[in-house]
């Protein structure tokens, strides 16, 4: 039996023990059957504890299972082995109770709905009254800086604004847990910096727990309290790095030696997993 969790991970878990875990995964594996008979191991023996209020980034090269892990938490995929709880429930129960908000790689706004009505959609499904739907949509759109764009259609917005609208849509459910799958991956660096700053302020202001998939080291270090380094073939956790920069962060922090040191550790972790091999 070889545990995939290195010492830092267990240390972090112990230190964060007082806070109730919001996600607890034990020995998760997910194997996809494929047409050519060679099953693909997307996740192998993954164990991870995410405490309330954490901002956890999953980082690794393509195919390392970071998106799969996020989708397992969201009950969009079922693991083939292992156990996982989300707020003490099974992922399915958590999904049925709408305990998380999910932000996809693409904004995935419905093009036939205005921005506001996109944000109102989950609330419509929850059965909230029209007045409350509108109030919440306005509130969340204001929070992501989209006040005044309620009546626009998605195609009238820039890519960054669309992704902000999709974040507002996830926030409208008022979940404690926010799952984000490379939400800024398709955006240019300037927009990305701006949204990173926005997101860290939002996280600090709301006290939500975030699980954030990325393949940008700088983004992971800037946003996270903990960084989970993953490696492909099979998808597994190599390292869990504590990112103990002050919670209040500005973009300048990226110039600091502490930031560089953590980024270096993440890069070392990725190297260890041969992520830089061709």
């Amino acid at each position, binding site marked *: 039996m070889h545990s995939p969790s290195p010492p830092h991970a267990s240390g972090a878990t112990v230190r964060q023990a007082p806070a109730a875990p919001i996600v607890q995964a034990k020995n998760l594996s997910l194997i996809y059957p494929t047409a050519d008979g060679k099953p693909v191991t997307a996740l192998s023996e993954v164990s991870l504890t995410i405490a309330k209020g954490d901002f956890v980034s999953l980082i690794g090269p393509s195919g390392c299972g970071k998106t799969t892990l996020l989708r397992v938490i969201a009950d*969009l995929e079922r693991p083939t082995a292992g156990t996982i709880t989300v707020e003490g429930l099974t992922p399915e129960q958590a999904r049925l*109770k*709408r305990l998380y908000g999910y932000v996809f790689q693409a904004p*995935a706004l419905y093009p*036939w*709905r205005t921005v506001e009505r996109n944000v109102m959609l989950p609330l419509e499904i929850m059965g909230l009254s029209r007045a409350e739907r509108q109030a919440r949509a306005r509130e969340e759109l204001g929070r992501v800086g989209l006040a005044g764009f309620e009546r626009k259609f998605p195609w009238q917005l820039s890519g960054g604004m669309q992704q902000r609208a999709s974040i507002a849509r996830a926030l409208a459910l008022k979940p404690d847990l926010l799952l984000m799958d490379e939400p800024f991956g398709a955006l240019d660096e300037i927009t990305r910096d701006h949204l990173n700053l926005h997101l860290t302020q939002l996280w600090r202001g709301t006290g939500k727990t975030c699980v954030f998939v990325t393949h940008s080291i700088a983004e992971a270090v800037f946003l996270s309290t903990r960084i989970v380094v993953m490696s492909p073939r099979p998808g597994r956790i190599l390292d869990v790095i504590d990112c103990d920069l002050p919670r209040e962060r500005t973009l300048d922090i990226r110039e600091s030696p502490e930031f560089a040191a953590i980024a270096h550790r993440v890069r070392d972790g990725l190297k260890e997993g041969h992520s830089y091999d061709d």
Partner: protein
Amino acid sequence: MTIKRGLSPSVLPVATMTVLLLVVWYAGAAWLNLPQAEEALTRAGKPFGFADLLTQAYSMKRPILPTPDQVLTELWTSLTSYAPTSPRNLLFHAGVTAQAALTGLAMGVVLGTLLAVGIVYTRTLEASLLPWVIASQTIPILAIAPMIVVILGNLGFTGLLPKAVICMYLCFFPITVGMVKGLRSADPLWLDLMRTYSAGGLRAFWSLRLPASLPFLFTSLKVSVAISVTGAIVGELPTGGQAGLGARLLSGSYYGQTVQIWAALVMAALLSVLLIAVVRGVELVLLGRGGAR
């Protein structure tokens, strides 16, 4: 070469094509009608030149191919000299045909959509139903139309309904094909999103699959509305009906009134164009703002 602002770049090509078409038409009319014209003038016994011959060929009462001006004059006379309720007015006939076509279209949309929903949601229906749907379209409508009229007539249905059923038979196919594609067009992320909201199947249908399919529905509708007019006209032939553009075509051919036939044809084309424009208008109103993708 520059094209002036404001002048649509398609004006020149369209005008060129129109002129070409008219030239070919007049040439064809001369070529086809000359033998008859020559015969008529010879019978009259007076000497005649080529100009007389051409004038005669372009002004025959029952030409093999009437000229565009003869057709337009016939159309204009029919529209302006008689009350719109008179059987001598083509508007009356167009109205009768349009009624059948639109009723049939509505029935076709309902049938086509129901079939599409069945096919999309039930694997077995896709395997069992789709071949029959396709086979239904391989039967020539001219062959099956009289059967439909006879069978429904036997059951006591005459007039509008048999014609509408024929239209429906033609219409549902593009609707089914379009809607199957449309209902499956929802982006996988959009479907995942519904799942994260723990939305039920019915909710996903109304809030996602159906709106996502509307652009496909309208593309199908534009095809269907045109063939629905054709269906209504075909349906009016075996009934030997007294009203409708099809009846007008039939009586025209009984009496060799080629000008009347052509006028009815032009009317049918105008009707189709109008109905397609209406569909396009509804599409713009419904999808215009969100549909720019």
